[in-house]
């Protein structure tokens, strides 16, 4: 992928990620998060990980965030938009974030692997859907099966609960 696309999508992701925090309107925040997710999935796709990118959109943008938005709209949080910013809290939050960032920088800087440049991505032998499937069903088969049963139990539970008639 041309590198300018990387910069565009990274900027979209970070910009709207910041907008999630800065917006006072909860709906605007939720929608910013949606666009941030779209940028993230574009970055995944730029690494030829189409499957992960699409699942990112399908699960988080298409389902989870819609439900979030749905609930926010039903709650009708108008007071949030009128609330004033607490300067002390903002400064404190920024300090914590900066300290955390500095710490990560110093740790990564001392890491041996961080000194070398990244090796180029190995060209895949098969497409990424197959690679993901192969890995899940061979190396991680047992955890995958357990998660599958868990999700199935949850869906059956939801159906049973919603089928029960209230008297």
């Amino acid at each position, binding site marked *: 992928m041309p590198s300018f696309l990387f910069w565009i999508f990274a900027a979209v992701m970070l910009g709207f990620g910041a907008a999630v925090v800065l917006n006072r309107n909860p*709906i605007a925040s939720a929608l910013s998060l949606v666009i941030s997710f779209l940028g993230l999935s574009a970055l995944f796709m730029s690494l030829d990980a189409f499957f992960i990118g*699409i699942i990112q*959109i399908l699960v988080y*943008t*298409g*389902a989870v965030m819609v439900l979030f938005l749905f609930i926010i709209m039903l709650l009708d949080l108008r007071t949030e938009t009128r609330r004033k910013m607490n300067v002390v809290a903002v400064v404190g939050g920024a300090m914590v974030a900066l300290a955390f960032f500095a710490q990560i920088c110093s740790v990564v800087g001392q890491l041996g692997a961080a000194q070398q440049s990244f090796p180029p991505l190995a060209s895949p032998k098969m497409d990424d859907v197959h690679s993901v499937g192969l890995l899940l069903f061979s190396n991680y088969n047992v955890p995958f099966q357990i998660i599958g049963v868990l999700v199935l139990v949850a*869906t059956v539970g*939801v159906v049973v609960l919603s089928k029960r008639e209230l008297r």
Partner: protein
Amino acid sequence: MDYVFLISSFIKIVALFAVVLGIVNYTVYAERRISALIQDRLGPNRVGPAGLLQPIADALKFLAKEDLTPGHVNKFYYWLAPCLAMIPAITTLAVIPFGSTLFGVPMVIADINVGVLFVFAIASLSVYGIVIAGWSSNSKYPFLGGVRSTSQMISYELSLGLAVIPIFLLLGQLRLTEVVRYQIEHGWMIAPFVGDWANPHKWLLAIPMMISFVVFTIAIFAETNRLPFDLPEAETELVGGYHTEYGSMKFALFFLGEYVAMITGSAIIVTLFLGGWHFPWIPDGSQGWGWGLVNIFVFFSKVVVLLCVFIWVRWTLPRFRYDQLMRLGWVFFFEIALANIFLVAIILAYFPS
């Protein structure tokens, strides 16, 4: 960069866009004429021969109308919503193989390996347009329409996703061109007449495929907010649903978005279950560009037939009640689709071809 690829992609995008918008316009016309036929009326028959110029007149009317923004709406989101309703529907067309090859160029804009998941992912974004329209209008009925639409689309996305899993269990592929290629070799998913048609394994598989087809088609009806599932814009209850506060071109964009979504839905049904651009005894585009054009024509003919079914159903069936709609989605189609997956898995495991 590969200039042939760039230029051919650009031509394909423009041509597909033009064809789809043309079909949209005449679907609206067909909707009005067929509804008139069903209700024993005449329908629009004054503009041009048999009213064929009516869509152009409608478009001009929408463009020339005053673009009114009500005072009580949330301006930015009110403007954003119609665009968000239109864009996902058009974007999904990118991965659908609408023809074989023309001059050696494959007739699909982006042949990506996650094909149908891409369609679902982008189609799931179309709910934002409706939700934001309902919310930003700041009025009761649009909001109710938006809320209804959200829960309906999320509920039926489950059946939609589960209904196509049997196909991918069979193929081991998500690429839509591979689905079409399989159907050329082994017959259409729900009607395996061509290829090795005497093979009982394929006819056994056609049973779960038929179930998938029915569930998928009905879920597409619900996803596109068409009758009998048009609760989000039920005129008798909600005035006009989520687009009550919209007028002129912004309303037209919602309208277009709905019809483009119908076309996309039909195109996916055709690709997955009805053989895509394939028709028995018609060679593909490698036999000459004339056949390539015939393949494209076959594809769009199938889409048009399905669109007529959409219209026919709309003017035949009454609307569901909301609790019926939810029960149908969650405790009926969901279970059928889930059981269907097990059925296909059992057939594939114990009755190998």
